């Protein structure tokens, strides 16, 4: 039942280095679509330091209103300060629904909020729609993507959802669109943070993280040794892609765990996934089979990876990948 005291859809935006993250633009677009479906307003929430310049982009992607909480103590993401700021915003402005990006920080913040509000949270949603009874149904992958479940929140508002990357298309930005900016002043003390970010070690320059990547090139046991990842990296660089790996390659010590795709690594759904020398163990397939297009390179034409591949290349990856690099370079150079 709609609760008239709680109205509107909020998108809580991730930002870093003066930019709204890619997934946050998807989250905002999802909030806009949901708000249209429910005939309510869509608002964006910007928490951080020196973030007021980002409001224009939030309007362009569909926000009717932007709550800006600009505070030096929000410069680094920290659960306690971000949580306190958002809890206080919720108490003052009472949204019915809040969407977050399904990122580490998004889950950190949303799970904290769920604890303080005692309201429902559905994480990793790939779809939000109303059923015939007007119930809001969230679809989410479970068991590492082997199954899907449809879930519905009940009870007190606001309901919380985190939105899976690459699941909901961002809207075309409408430049010049404006709306209300609501600056919010918070009483935050450094004491509140309980934690200090001493240092941020950025991802290696030019390295694209798996969860943000539009294209992922992954290597597995078929590479034969750690040096094989040099070739994988070269293909990835050609396509501006992230480098992934199967558990076998990680366990062999060829590449750090941060690159592992699969149920005990990262679940990914890029536009294009190129699996090289990966046989396609269950746990790997679960973690990548929601990619839009899958290309697999493997010598064994019975490898399970081919059951998920749109294009399966049966051959030696050391003969195939150099040709791929050469061909992709030609395509890229022609643009």
């Amino acid at each position, binding site marked *: 039942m709609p609760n008239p005291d709680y109205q509107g859809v909020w998108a809580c935006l991730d930002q870093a280095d003066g930019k709204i993250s890619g997934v946050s633009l998807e989250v905002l677009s999802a909030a806009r679509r949901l708000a249209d479906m429910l005939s309510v307003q869509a608002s964006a929430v910007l928490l951080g330091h020196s973030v007021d310049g980002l409001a224009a982009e939030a309007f362009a992607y569909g926000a009717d209103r932007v709550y800006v909480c600009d505070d030096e103590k929000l410069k680094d993401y920290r659960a306690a300060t971000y949580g306190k700021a958002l809890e206080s915003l919720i108490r003052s402005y009472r949204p019915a629904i809040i969407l977050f990006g399904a990122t580490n920080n998004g889950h950190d913040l949303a799970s904290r909020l769920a604890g303080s509000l005692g309201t429902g949270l559905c994480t990793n949603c790939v779809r939000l729609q109303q059923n015939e009874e007007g119930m809001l149904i969230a679809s989410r992958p479970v*068991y590492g993507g082997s199954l899907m479940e449809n879930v519905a929140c009940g009870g007190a508002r606001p309901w919380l959802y985190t939105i899976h990357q690459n699941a909901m298309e961002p809207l075309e930005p409408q430049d010049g669109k404006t709306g209300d900016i609501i600056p919010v002043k918070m009483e935050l003390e450094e004491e509140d943070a309980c934690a200090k970010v001493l240092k941020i070690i950025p991802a290696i320059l030019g390295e694209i993280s798996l969860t943000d990547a539009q294209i992922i090139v992954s290597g597995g046991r078929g590479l034969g040794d750690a040096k094989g990842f040099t070739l994988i990296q070269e293909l990835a660089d050609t396509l501006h892609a992230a480098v992934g790996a199967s558990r076998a390659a990680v366990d062999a010590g060829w590449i750090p765990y941060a690159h592992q795709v699969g149920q005990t690594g990262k679940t990914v759904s890029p536009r294009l996934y190129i699996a090289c020398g990966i046989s396609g163990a269950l746990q790997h397939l679960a973690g990548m089979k929601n990619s839009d297009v899958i290309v697999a390179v493997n010598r064994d034409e019975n490898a399970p990876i081919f059951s998920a591949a749109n*294009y399966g290349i049966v051959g030696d990856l050391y003969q195939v990948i150099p040709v791929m690099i050469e061909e992709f370079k030609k395509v890229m150079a022609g643009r």
Partner: protein
Amino acid sequence: MNIMVCIKQVLDNASVPKLDPATGRVVTEGVETIANPFDLNALEGALRLTDVHGGEVSVITVGNEECKTVLKLGLAMGAAHAYLVKAPDGQEQDSWSVSYLLSRAITSLGPFDLVLCGKQAIDDDSAQVGGSIARLLNMTQVTYVEEIQEVSSESITVKRAGNSGSEIIAARLPALLTCEKSLGEPRYPTLKRTRMANRVDIPALDCTEIGADPDRAGALVKVQMVYAPEPRQRGELLRGEPEEITRLAVARLVEQKII
């Protein structure tokens, strides 16, 4: 250090979970179970801390009598105490329910310097319980911890996987951490400890014993339906001269505007 590690019993991921067409739920009857892998990484991290700094590790789970299996594994790996929290009968539970019950139990069993959880469970992939417990207990919260670097009586320094890289964070104790696999490969239980664990009578705590209100422990998120994702269409298998078929595959990607 006094550390509590939360463990969830999940279905063994060696096989694909099966759906019961009659109930539209995952078949759990007769299926092997394991401890959630990330929770065992958390337990390993906890044991390494007490190996160096002294203190005790406890393990806890929410569920039925069968869930004592994962607690026994925890004891066999080196935990000193184990607790089962019995979920109220006839009630559907979700991540909120588990967070609420665990937070009450941890309060009644504590105090703890640290509470550790896995970064997520590999069945529902929610990544929710850790953060919710931290807030319910008003503990410092650091999720996605990749490494524990330093511990003092007041604080812990960890490396966290943040959104734009790894963060080195000094967190005030008591703190709740959710742990990545890199916290440590779980140690093998010794035969002696396994025998000992099997003899331990693990207490099963109900709502009254942990001061929880059963009416608050119900699910806020209800599962409507579980289903198999749309199967992927079997694609095109290209065989032949490597150079030729690779060119063909690239041409297809360009034609379809994927590149």
